[in-house]
């Protein structure tokens, strides 16, 4: 035993109380203190919640966005159709993101998460906000990055990238409201692939169609339609997400 420890033992012979504190009283009090802490903590901690969830979002989700960035960087030079090609990848990104916000259900953690102070609802909001913003930031970054090689404005490029992304998210969120969607979480993956094909996955016949439609719009000066559409889609996604989460703060019949 160290000198300090021996010293302490000796002193405790005198200083240690003969009467210990009432354990029941102590437990009851500590419980109340905990509650006090939590009531205060939750008030100032929406940002803490965000920080927590950032930690618990899987690496794959972040990587998916960065992968697209990488691909964009690689295929843009000297490629006139690059924007649509990149846009074709964004549905998959939307799928990965959407799945990540619903992980709790996939792994049976949802019921427990509903009963905590920061409940399932805030978890989903947090994940959605974080990943969603991250994804859109990456897409915006891509738009900026490739503006030199592309014939359109940054905003228009961004609109091109966002539309399939938001369309997929809308579809996934609508799917979530149905019984089928809830029991088949990867259903939105199929949706993502379909939208991806529609956007211009060159291997499929729909590709050239989308491209020519696109060119027509731009040439005719109606490109702004795409930009407005993107904004509207964004609003739709947010509204849908909020209503979905609101509905799902309690268990639904089919799930239980």
């Amino acid at each position, binding site marked *: 035993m160290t*000198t*300090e420890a*021996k*010293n*302490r033992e*000796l*002193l*405790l*012979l*005198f*200083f*240690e*109380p003969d*009467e*210990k*504190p*009432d354990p029941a*009283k*102590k437990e009851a*009090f*500590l419980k109340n*203190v905990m509650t*006090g*802490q939590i009531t*205060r*903590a939750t008030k100032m901690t929406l940002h803490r919640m965000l920080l927590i969830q950032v930690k618990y979002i899987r690496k794959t989700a972040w990587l998916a966005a960065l992968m697209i960035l990488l691909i964009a960087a690689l295929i843009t030079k000297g490629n006139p159709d690059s924007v649509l090609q990149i846009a074709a990848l964004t549905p998959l990104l939307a799928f990965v993101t959407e799945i990540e916000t619903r992980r709790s259900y996939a792994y049976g953690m949802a019921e427990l998460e509903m009963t905590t102070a920061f409940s399932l609802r805030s978890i989903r909001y947090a994940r959605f906000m974080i990943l969603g913003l991250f994804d859109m930031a990456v897409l915006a970054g891509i738009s900026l990055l490739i503006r030199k090689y592309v014939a359109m404005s940054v905003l228009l490029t961004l609109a091109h990238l966002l539309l399939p992304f938001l369309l997929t998210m809308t579809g996934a969120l609508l799917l979530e409201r149905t019984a089928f969607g809830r029991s088949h979480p990867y259903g939105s993956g199929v949706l993502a692939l379909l939208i991806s094909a529609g956007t211009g996955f060159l291997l499929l016949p729909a590709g050239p169609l989308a491209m020519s439609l696109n060119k027509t719009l731009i040439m005719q000066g109606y490109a702004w339609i795409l930009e407005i559409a993107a904004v509207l889609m964004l609003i739709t996604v947010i509204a849908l997400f909020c209503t979905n989460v609101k509905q799902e703060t309690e268990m639904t019949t089919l799930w239980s």
Partner: protein
Amino acid sequence: MSFDISMQYDRLYRYCYYHTYNRILAQDIVQEAFTRYMERYGSLNEKNAVPYLYVIARNLCIDHYRRQGTQAEKYLQEQTYEQEQTIGLTESEDNTLITKLSVQRALSRLSEEERELLLLISVNEVSAREAGMILGISRFAVYRRLRLAQKHLRTELGKEGIDGDY
């Protein structure tokens, strides 16, 4: 830097019990100290949570015994006297009990501040910086006085027949 509330509760209780020798009062003061701290600062994970808790507790103890002097002194005086009367009978008993009485006697010959320093720093593991905040003296004064207190204690323990490394 972790705040273990259960442990700090017990340590504060030890501190308050030393100042009041009254279980109910000590526990009430500990809880009142936590409550007042929480009301002012909210979170126990502040750097200065520990010293603030002690300061609040200490003031509450003083409030109760302002006129009577610290309870510890009274107690020590009474106890020491009683034990001195009965020591002849208990000499054959438990070693720990004898050591306990010796420690008590030794400590009764230290100053109030010396005892306070030993309780805070050597027993309750309060840091020197924190002890300085609680007692209103500089960190260096804490180191110096603690050293002297330990030296004094060693001497007094020696008089009681307790020697050796500690």
